[in-house]
């Protein structure tokens, strides 16, 4: 936020009100300055009695006033509720605006006033009284104090935040008619941190880019989604976005919620800036949803795609509860997801990010080897799913080596199970990946996410090196852990999983031992759908999760369960 960017009051013709305020405002209800038209010069401090709302002096003693205030927990007001193309934070508060919070100041005895002092993040907090800016950041100035007289029914201040996780304190001093302090009360004012969704939350809406192109078609996969999700699913026309199918990578959806029922969704727009870049603006931007970018597109790497930004379900680790889980992404030192992005996520405090080493992968995303799936029968209510090489070889060694692997012949060079088993270099590669990469990742996840061995599902997986990728690897068997969890209103949890096609071309899924092994390993309550992602995603070095995005419903109030994590308070 720059100073010039908030010079909106004058531009909108209400600058007179602010310019008349001096250091204490000037709107209706304000008191205490010689410029105040409602009190007139010299009135303050000259009355010996109370003044009723009509200005009549009474001699009744002041009634007791409860001078305690609940904290204000709001959301950043950075969407565009009036759809005028201007960020709402840059505008005067308007009818229909639904992202501000309110603070009711009770009526006071006649002659009594309130002196309000704002501290903390003044730049990103703003207080309005009856449509006039009175405190915080506005019109290029920062207003720290404001004196006023509450109305007969009290006065409702509107509180607005310009950023996620803005923290301020409003100190409200109740002054009697001599200006002496009766009592003072602090009010914590705070906007929601940006919270990433996790796989336990209810699914709201799902998107996939539909393509029928020379490199393949995903119409069958789209049909599978439609059959399960119905109106909760939208297929995006691929031709409109240059057949860029990697919608998981383009945006990360986050949310903020407030204690008055506000919800402010944030689209974290990747700096990858491929053909899907305008989609968020086309489809998601509007009232309730803002779009922001962290990082410089000129510095974008594969790690800046949001298959490389995932979030766990709620957890407790080392005695610390993380009710919104912890986020994780590929980053080591200054390599990995852009510093601006990781700095922002770290600064949110509530999901305490964990860095993983993903540099062994050609694409380098955490969704290529890990996920979380619901399991209501487990102690934590979910399981951590991780790629596992030994279980893949253990499975293969039970199979007939002459078993045909239809699609693997042309696309991977393995016509049969035996071809895979006989490939010493492939075995050495995968054994090394297990020891060097997957085992340490599992240990990190256990250490940082409070997992126990019984929480982990090891899913058979094999990787291969990708030509021209500097030795980087990608899934040989379609990465089945690269899946989507859709939790429906009826309580069902559906998984959309890449069909591994570990079978002959003429065989169906029922004959696929990889599907059998994966399904056997899944919690029984989950409903798996093995969808054909081979041509469109797998051969493009991604899988189902990479090609899907979704919104989810917030389930917990951060101010009730997460304040202990918010060190910025």
């Amino acid at each position, binding site marked *: 936020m720059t100073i010039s960017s908030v010079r909106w009051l004058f531009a909108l013709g209400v600058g007179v009100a602010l310019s008349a305020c001096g250091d204490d405002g000037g709107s209706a209800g304000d008191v205490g300055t010689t410029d105040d038209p409602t009190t007139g010069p010299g009135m303050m401090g000259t009355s010996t009695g109370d003044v009723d709302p009509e200005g009549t002096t009474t001699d009744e003693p002041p009634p007791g006033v409860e001078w305690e205030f609940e904290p204000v927990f709001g959301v950043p007001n950075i969407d565009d509720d009036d759809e005028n193309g201007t960020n709402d934070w840059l505008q005067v508060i308007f009818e229909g605006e639904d992202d501000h919070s309110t603070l009711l100041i009770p009526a006071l005895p006649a002659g009594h006033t309130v002196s309000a002092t704002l501290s903390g993040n003044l730049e990103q907090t703003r207080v309005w009284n009856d449509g006039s800016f009175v405190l915080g950041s506005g019109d290029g100035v920062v207003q720290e104090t404001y004196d006023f007289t509450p109305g007969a029914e009290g006065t409702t201040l509107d509180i607005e935040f310009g950023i996620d996780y803005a923290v301020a304190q409003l100190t409200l001093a109740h002054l009697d008619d001599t200006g002496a302090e009766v009592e003072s009360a602090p009010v914590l004012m705070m906007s929601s941190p940006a919270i990433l969704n996790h796989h336990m939350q209810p699914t709201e809406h799902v998107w996939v880019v539909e393509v029928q*192109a*020379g*490199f*393949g078609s995903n119409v069958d996969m789209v049909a599978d989604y439609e059959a399960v999700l119905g109106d909760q699913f939208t297929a995006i026309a691929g031709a409109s976005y240059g*057949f*860029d199918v*990697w919608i998981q*990578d383009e945006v990360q959806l986050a949310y903020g919620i407030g204690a008055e029922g506000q919800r402010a969704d944030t689209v974290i727009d990747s700096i990858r800036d*491929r053909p899907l870049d305008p989609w968020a603006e086309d489809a998601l931007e509007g009232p309730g949803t803002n779009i922001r970018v962290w990082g410089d597109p000129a510095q974008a790497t*594969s790690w800046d*795609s949001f*298959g490389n930004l995932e979030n766990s379900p709620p957890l407790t680790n080392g005695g610390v509860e993380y009710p919104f889980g912890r986020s994780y992404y590929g980053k080591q030192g200054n390599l990995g997801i852009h510093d601006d992005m990781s700095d922002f996520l770290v600064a949110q405090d509530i999901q305490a990010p964990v860095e993983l080493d993903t540099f062994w992968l*050609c*694409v380098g*995303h955490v969704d290529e080897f890990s996920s979380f799936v619901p399991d209501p029968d487990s102690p934590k209510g979910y399981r951590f799913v991780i790629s596992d090489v030994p279980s893949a070889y253990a499975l293969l060694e039970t199979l007939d080596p002459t078993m045909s692997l239809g699609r693997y*012949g*042309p*696309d991977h*060079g393995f016509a049969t199970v035996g071809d895979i088993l006989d*490939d*010493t*270099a*492939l075995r*050495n*590669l995968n054994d*090394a990946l297990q*020891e*060097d990469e997957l*085992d*340490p990742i599992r240990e990190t996840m256990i250490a940082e996410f409070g997992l126990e061995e019984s929480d982990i599902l090891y899913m058979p997986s094999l990787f291969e*090196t*990708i*030509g*021209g*990728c*500097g*030795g*980087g690897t*990608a899934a040989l068997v379609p990465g089945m852990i690269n899946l989507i969890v859709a939790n429906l209103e009826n309580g069902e949890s559906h998984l959309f999983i890449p069909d591994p096609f570990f079978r002959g071309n003429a065989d169906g899924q029922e004959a696929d031992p990889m599907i059998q092994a994966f399904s056997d390993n899944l919690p029984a309550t989950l409903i798996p759908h093995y969808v054909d992602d081979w*041509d469109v995603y797998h*051969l*493009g*070095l*991604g899988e189902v999760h*990479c090609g899907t995005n979704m919104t989810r419903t917030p389930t917990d109030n951060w101010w009730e369960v997460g304040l202990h994590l918010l060190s910025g308070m």
Partner: protein
Amino acid sequence: MTKRIQTPIIVSVLALGLVGCAGGSTEPDGLRSAQGLTPSEVVAPSDVSPAEASADAVAVTPAVAVEKWRPWMDAEVERLRNEQPEYFDTMMSLEARTTRAGFPRISGPLVRNPDAAPILLYRLLSKSEPVAVRAAIVDALPRTMGDYSAALAELMTLETEPRVRELIAASLYRAAAPYALDGLALGLADVDAKVRAEALRSVGRRKDGDVLASAVVAALSDADEAVQIEAARAAGNLQVEAAKAGLVGKLTSDSGAVRRHSLRALSLIDAEYTRSLAQLTTLQADADPKVARVAATIAAGD
């Protein structure tokens, strides 16, 4: 490394290439002109007309046509133009899609067809396309299950773009001998480190890669770290006994990745010998946890 080509394994059909390219007399971008080769490298260009070549192609399989891959390609192109014009045109213009990693790739049902190989080779030689697309064409060839082995081996000598040669080296992993090994030998001697590293990956994955064992051992001393790593991995995969001394020397490399892959390669070649190395104790306390982990595994005899 200042010379790109060190190994005189140039196949005799070298100049059958560009000047005989069907449908064009000019070289596409990125390919070195055959006229730029030394006379000893050049044999007379094919004077086989497409029609004549087509007749030959009917009688021979790609596997035996490889030595004269150029006339075979011309003939196949002619045949496919006549018999499957839509498929031919589609493959000539099939767009490379952008992978999740960001580089383009040509794949999918249209590519899974041996007939795609001659078309893609023809496209590579006759159309001026961006380097990334030309690399994608090379990358697609193994997925056709068609014949491309001799062509890629030869193109390793003619291609001027390192990125394309890198993908040639990768695709030669699945190519037929002896052409694959000829091409990979050139790749191991390439001026570009990425090409050398990719060639080592392919050599290390081939069951006959030990034919190039001496080049693998030599690559352990390459100036480039990635090449050293791939040389170590290839030596381990191929169980190159002659690499043991060089690999031991790499156990004190400044690079943790070189130390790790050298140690693992040693254990693949000779586990007992590796466990007897005094360095193994030091490496179990290596500053790089990945090195320490591998060393501990080896010391434990796992």
